[in-house]
C-alpha cells in the first residue's frame, strides 16, 4: 500500500508528511468513577460522536430522567447492560485526531471482571486509570495498577476525576498522587502520569482547564497524542513465528516457497543469517515479499512473507530468529496466569497451550502461589485458580516451545490456555 499521502513507496519508513500513528489504550474504573463519562467526553470533544448517536443518547437520557445528556450512555452496548446500568464485557471505541488514531479497550472495573481488564490490557500501549477525587485511591485502583504492570503496559495515566466536586483543590490531588505513587513503587511501572480532570465538565480532558491554574501539565488528550509509543516495541530480538507456508504451485510461481507471518519483534533484513526452530538449521533471508513488492527490511507489526536461501523444511509453528539471539527452548514453563473460566484450573489438568503460531499440549504441573490482586500477598497453599484469579503456575509441555520472558517480549512471552473439551480460552499466561 502507499504508506503516506506522498504516495511514495517508502517501505513503511517515516515520511516527510507525518502519517497518523495507531495507539491502543485500556481504560479501567467502575461506573461510579465516571469512566463512561470520560470516554464519552473524549469522543465528544474530538468530534467522534455523530448527530444520530447523540440524538439517541438525548432520547434515552430523557426517558431515564437523567436530567442532562448522559454521555456515559454512548458506551453502553447490550440491552442487558442498558437495563442494569452495568458493563459486562470489553467494548472497543475509536476516535482520531490529526496526529493519531486511537483504539480504546473499555473494560469494566468490578473485581469479577479482572479477566476483561487483562484482555483489554494485553494489546494496550497505555492504561488509563480513574480515581474519584472524593474517594481517593481505592482497592480497585490498586488492582487496576497491578494488572497494568503485570501485563507490562508501558505507560500508565492516572486521571483524578471529579475535581469539580472537591473545589479543584490542589491538596486533594497531591495527596492522591503521593498515595498512588507509593503503591506503584511496589509494582513495575515505568512511566506514570497524573492528570486532575472533571470528565463531566471537560476540565483538562481535551484542553487545559483554567480552573486549576496550579496544574501545569498537559491535558489528557494532549498527553495521549504525544506519549512516545513507537519505541516501546522490541526492535532488538528478531522473532518471526511462521503462520502459513505460501506455495502457489502456479505456472508463474512454480518453485516459489515463502513463509508468511507477522514480525513479532526485532528487524529482519534481506541477507540476514537466520536460524529456523525447532530444526536448528541455519540459512539466510533471500527476500522479504509483500503484495506490493519486495522490502529490504521488516519490523513489528508488519505482516510479510520471508523467503530463505536454502530449500529446507519449514512449517507453521516454526520460529525464525537469529543464530546468536534465539528464544529459549523449553519443555517446562514458569508463568503468571490469569484464569478466565468459570471452571477452575484443574490440578494436573490438561490444556492446549497456544504460543505465537504454535499449539501444543500442557499439563498444569504446580500452582506455586496465588496472588491477592489487592494486597499483592502470595498465598502459597492455594489449591486451585478460579475465575479472575492470578497465580504463578508451572506447566509441563508435550513438545517444546520457543519463548522469551514476557517482560522482555510481549509477543513471544505470552500464551493462552484452551480447554480441550469445551474449546474455551481459559487462561492467559505471561512467561517469567
Amino acid at each position, binding site marked *: 500500500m502507499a*504508506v503516506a499521502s506522498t504516495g511514495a513507496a517508502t517501505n513503511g519508513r517515516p515520511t516527510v508528511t507525518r502519517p497518523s500513528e*495507531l495507539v491502543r489504550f485500556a481504560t479501567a474504573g467502575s461506573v461510579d468513577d465516571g469512566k463512561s463519562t470520560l470516554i464519552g467526553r473524549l469522543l465528544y470533544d474530538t468530534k467522534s460522536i455523530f448527530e*444520530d448517536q447523540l440524538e439517541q443518547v438525548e432520547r*434515552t437520557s430523557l426517558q431515564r430522567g437523567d436530567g442532562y445528556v448522559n454521555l456515559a450512555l454512548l458506551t453502553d*452496548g447490550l*440491552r442487558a447492560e442498558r437495563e442494569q446500568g452495568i458493563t459486562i464485557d470489553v467494548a472497543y471505541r475509536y476516535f482520531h485526531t490529526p496526529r493519531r*488514531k486511537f483504539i480504546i479497550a473499555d473494560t469494566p472495573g468490578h473485581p469479577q471482571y479482572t479477566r476483561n481488564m487483562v484482555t483489554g490490557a494485553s494489546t494496550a500501549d497505555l492504561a488509563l486509570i480513574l480515581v474519584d477525587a472524593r474517594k481517593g485511591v481505592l482497592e480497585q485502583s490498586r488492582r487496576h495498577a497491578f494488572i497494568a504492570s503485570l501485563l507490562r503496559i508501558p505507560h500508565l495515566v492516572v486521571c483524578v476525576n471529579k475535581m469539580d466536586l472537591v473545589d479543584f483543590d490542589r491538596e486533594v490531588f497531591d495527596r492522591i498522587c503521593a498515595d498512588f505513587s507509593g503503591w506503584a513503587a511496589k509494582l513495575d511501572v515505568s512511566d506514570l502520569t497524573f492528570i486532575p480532570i472533571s470528565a463531566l465538565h471537560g476540565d483538562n480532558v481535551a484542553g487545559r482547564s483554567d480552573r486549576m491554574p496550579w496544574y501545569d501539565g498537559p491535558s489528557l488528550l494532549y498527553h495521549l497524542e504525544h506519549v512516545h509509543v513507537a*519505541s516501546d516495541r522490541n526492535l532488538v530480538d528478531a522473532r518471526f513465528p511462521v503462520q502459513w507456508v505460501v506455495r502457489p504451485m502456479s505456472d508463474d510461481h512454480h518453485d516459489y516457497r515463502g513463509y508468511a507471518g507477522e514480525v513479532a519483534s526485532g528487524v529482519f533484513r534481506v541477507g540476514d543469517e537466520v536460524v529456523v526452530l525447532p530444526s536448528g538449521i541455519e540459512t539466510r533471508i533471500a527476500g522479504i515479499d509483500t503484495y506490493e513488492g519486495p522490502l529490504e527490511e521488516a519490523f513489528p507489526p508488519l505482516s510479510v512473507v520471508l523467503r530463505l536461501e536454502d530449500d529446507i523444511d519449514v512449517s507453521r509453528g516454526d520460529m525464525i530468529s537469529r543464530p546468536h539471539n534465539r528464544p529459549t527452548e523449553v519443555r517446562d514453563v514458569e508463568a503468571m496466569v490469569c484464569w478466565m473460566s468459570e471452571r477452575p484450573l484443574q490440578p494436573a489438568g490438561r490444556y492446549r497451550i497456544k504460543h505465537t503460531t504454535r499449539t501444543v499440549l500442557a499439563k498444569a504441573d504446580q500452582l506455586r502461589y496465588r496472588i491477592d490482586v489487592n494486597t499483592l500477598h502470595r498465598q502459597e497453599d492455594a489449591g486451585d485458580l478460579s475465575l479472575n484469579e492470578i497465580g504463578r503456575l508451572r506447566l509441563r509441555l508435550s513438545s517444546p516451545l520457543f519463548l522469551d520472558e514476557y517482560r522482555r517480549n510481549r509477543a513471544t512471552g505470552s*500464551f493462552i490456555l484452551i480447554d480441550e473439551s469445551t474449546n474455551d480460552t481459559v487462561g492467559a499466561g505471561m512467561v517469567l
Partner: protein
Amino acid sequence: MLRGDQMTYEIPHLRALESEAIHVVREVAAEVERGVLLFSGGKDSAVVLHLARKAFWPAALPFPVMHVDTGHNFPEVIEYRDRMVADLDARLIVASVQESIDSGRVVEENGPRSSRNRLQSVTLLDAIEEHGFRAAFGGARRDEERARAKERILSFRDDFGQWDPKRQRPELWNLYNGFVKPGEHVRVFPLSNWTELDVWQYVREERIDLPSIYFAHRREVFRRDGMLYATSDFVELIDGEEPFEESVRFRTVGDMSCTGAVRSTAATLEEVVAEIAATRITERGETRADDRISEAAMEDRKKEGYF
C-alpha cells in the same frame, strides 16, 4: 533499542490495521478448515477480499467467496461482484434468498415496507451448513453499531448460528483461538478495528475497485421516513410518495428495499473521502432502515445468526 536520530520504524495507522487484518485472515485459514469469504459487493467486503488476496499472494485464495443474494440487489453490485470474482479467479457460491422462499424455508414479508434483509440469516445459515463451512469471513466493523462494539474478531456461533454475547472467548494479544466443534462455526471480522473513514482512506490509497453506486450519480428516488430510497421493482410506493430525480450516492450496500441513499455530488474517491471525513451522521443511521426498528435491532438480529 533504536532511538534518537536513528530509524524509529514508525508505521502509519492504516498499515498497522492492514497488518493486523492480514494476520487474522492467515491465522484462521491455518487453524480452521473450510473457510468462506462472505462477499456482499459492499466496500467493507471489497476491502476484506483485497486483504485476503494480499494475505496469500502470490498464491490464490485458499477458500471460495459466497454471496447471499436477496434477489433485491442493485444491478450495479451484481455486475461488480461478477467482475471481481472473474478478476481473482475465485470460486463463487451464490446462496439465494429466493430459493429459501421457494422451498418454504422462510416466508416473504408483505406490504410496502417489507424487506428480505432479515430472511438472509436463514439462507446464510443453511448455506454454511450445506457446504460445511467452519469459518466465514465478513466485513463487519465495531464502529458500526454498539452491539458490534462488543463483538470479538473471531465470533463463535453455536449449532443454531446464534451469537451469545455473554459467552464470548476472550481475545488476548494476537492469539486467536480458532477451535470449533462440529456444527459450530466462527464468523471472522478482520476489519473489527477499522472505522468507516479508515475503510475509505484505505480504498483510496489502494485504489480498490468499488460498485459505481458508491459514487454520485443521477437516480430516481423517493422519500420515506426522512430517507431517500431508489425506486425499483422491489419496493411499493405508499400513497403520497412521489418519485423524483436526484444526485445521490450510497454509503452502504444492502438490499435495495432497505438501503437509503444520501444526496451527494461526490463523484471521485477523493471527493467521497472528503465527504465521509466531514459527515456528522453514522452510515447506519443515515442509510439503513433495518437498524431503525429499535435500539437493540442489531443485537437481536445478530443473536439470530445475522452477519
